């Protein structure tokens, strides 16, 4: 992957981003085009960089939990859970099993909401706004449920080091059951609209293919890897929280169609099947939930003192809706960690954009980019990308007209 030069003769080079209607978040792409076909693709992330890891090293661990939560506004539980799991391993804090189950339930609800969100965004990229509205209408019920359980629609703030901050009391269970029933009811309708529609099939089949070999070598995670046949799922591979007690299998597209093509359509299948799987997981959790306290160290002052004495290193992981999230934390008898490395799922999935995009058409850029469900704010934790010299815009054209622009067109 070399820097693509901005050229004025064919093949033309073009840049898209960092703010573009297809990208809900800032990232910049450079494409070398031949007509409507992409010859080479390159990307420059980093536009959303806030320096979170660096900020974290100046704060105490309780503050970091909320800072980590705000790494990403879609995976609200993912980063705080991974961070807390890492800290718990360093400080040898045993979380009660009830807290594990509550974490799992909230995590799976988040997966449902995230996948529905993705389905809506993907439909919008395809110009299919009715499906977008339908998916998000269903998603509002998940949001209501999450708000009911945690107190906020997006940043749940339910995870705390040593457990969770809010309990799921028995009087909350009927409402969860009711919502699960509702999701099961609409699941068939959603699946039919996304999988049977002729126009969606025309756009997504054999588009943006990631072969199994590439999926192994480029280290993608989550649905991106599973849609290409790599059976990798932290929930299954690595026993943690309540997943260690549950029966579940990694979802691959062949469970529905009997084949694995690794295209955008397969990624839709995987995500839709995972919604169904999540409903089942929540059911299992509600049925088996043990009693117990929800916090290992309820007093914050005590917890902070205990963490100040902790020393060691550990990795906390969680299977986010987009794939594996990892937090490496190293403590050294101070209030703040010595090292904190966040690996968001999109960080691993970035590399798979290149083989997916090359050889495809300009019109497919939005859906292919969206197909890995990129979470740029997650990945761009560390810093920013400055202006890359003049931002030259050269668009290919039939009549050999090159236009240079020093500005960018946008929509957030």
């Amino acid at each position, binding site marked *: 992957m070399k820097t693509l030069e901005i050229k004025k003769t064919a093949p033309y080079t073009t840049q898209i981003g960092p703010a573009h209607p297809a990208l809900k978040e800032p990232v910049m792409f450079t494409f070398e085009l031949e007509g409507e076909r992409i010859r080479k693709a390159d990307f420059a992330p980093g536009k959303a960089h806030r320096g979170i890891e660096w900020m974290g090293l100046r704060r105490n661990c309780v503050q970091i939990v909320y800072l980590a939560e705000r790494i990403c506004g879609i995976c609200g539980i993912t980063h705080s859970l991974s961070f807390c799991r890492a800290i718990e391993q360093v400080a040898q804090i045993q979380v009660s099993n009830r807290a594990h189950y509550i974490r799992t339930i909230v995590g799976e609800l988040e997966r449902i909401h995230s996948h529905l969100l993705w389905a809506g965004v993907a439909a919008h990229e395809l110009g299919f706004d009715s499906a977008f509205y339908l998916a998000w209408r269903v998603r509002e019920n998940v949001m209501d449920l999450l708000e009911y359980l945690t107190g906020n629609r997006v940043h749940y703030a339910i995870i705390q080091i040593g457990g969770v901050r809010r309990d799921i009391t028995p009087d909350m269970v009927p409402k969860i059951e009711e919502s699960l029933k509702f999701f099961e009811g609409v699941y068939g309708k959603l699946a039919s609209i996304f999988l049977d529609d002729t126009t969606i099939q025309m756009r997504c089949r054999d588009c943006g293919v990631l072969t199994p070999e590439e999926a192994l070598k480029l*280290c993608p995670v989550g649905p991106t890897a599973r849609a290409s046949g790599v059976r990798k799922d932290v929930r299954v591979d*690595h026993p*943690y929280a309540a997943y*260690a007690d549950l029966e579940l299998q990694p979802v691959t597209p062949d469970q529905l169609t009997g084949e694995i093509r690794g295209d955008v359509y397969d990624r839709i299948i995987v995500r839709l099947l995972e919604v169904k799987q999540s409903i089942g997981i929540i059911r299992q959790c509600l049925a088996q939930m043990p009693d117990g306290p929800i916090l290992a160290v309820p007093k914050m002052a005590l917890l902070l003192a205990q963490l100040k004495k902790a020393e060691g290193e550990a990795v906390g992981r969680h299977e986010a809706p987009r794939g594996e999230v990892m937090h490496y934390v190293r403590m050294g008898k101070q209030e703040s960690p010595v090292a904190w490395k966040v690996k968001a799922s999109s960080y691993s999935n970035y590399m798979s954009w290149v083989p997916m995009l090359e050889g495809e058409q300009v019109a497919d850029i939005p859906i292919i980019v969206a197909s890995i469900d990129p979470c740029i704010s997650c990945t761009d934790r*560390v810093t920013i990308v400055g202006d890359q010299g003049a931002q030259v815009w050269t668009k290919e054209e039939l009549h050999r007209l090159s236009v240079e622009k020093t500005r960018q067109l946008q929509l957030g």
Partner: protein
Amino acid sequence: MKMLAPQEIVDVLKEAAGDAFKEARCTEWAEGVKGNKSRQVWIRLDRKALRPALKRLIEIHFPHLGVISCTDLGEEVELLYHLFVYYGVPHSEIMVTLAVSLPKTDLSIPTITDLIPGALVSEREKQEMMGIRVENIPDGRRMFLPDDFPEGVYPWRKDATGIPSDMVKELWTTGRENLKPPEGAGATEEEKKE
């Protein structure tokens, strides 16, 4: 596929690393009612053994590279390659962390992108954030940092080459200068801010 136990992995990699092997520990952590354990292997090596050990690991099972973590330990910088083997088989994944310490006088490490192409993002990040020199990296451009970011400033360093305090913008203070004094406080002392 015959699956090795964590200690067996340590033994195999120890043999591959030879005298460059420094220390190893195996840890376990259980969560949930059934208490199924997740297993981790932490191996500390010299930098010359990184590639042989990784090659040996690839022979066991093609590992998934999570990320390369990095810590500034004062005199030296430690790189940690978090690798995962035996994924796809329920509850049997093992995390193998290969840790390599580099003295700050010579921060260079050979690339592993020829073995695991997916390591590129992580290696590029280490170059810009910690000032590591990755030898033979196929694409050495900056990833997250801007091109006009000052040379010789590495955000993750904790010494003089880290972020200087004049680069830090305290957003929370903006606009508070003109605030009316809080209830019960004298206006003259109001400027006092921590």
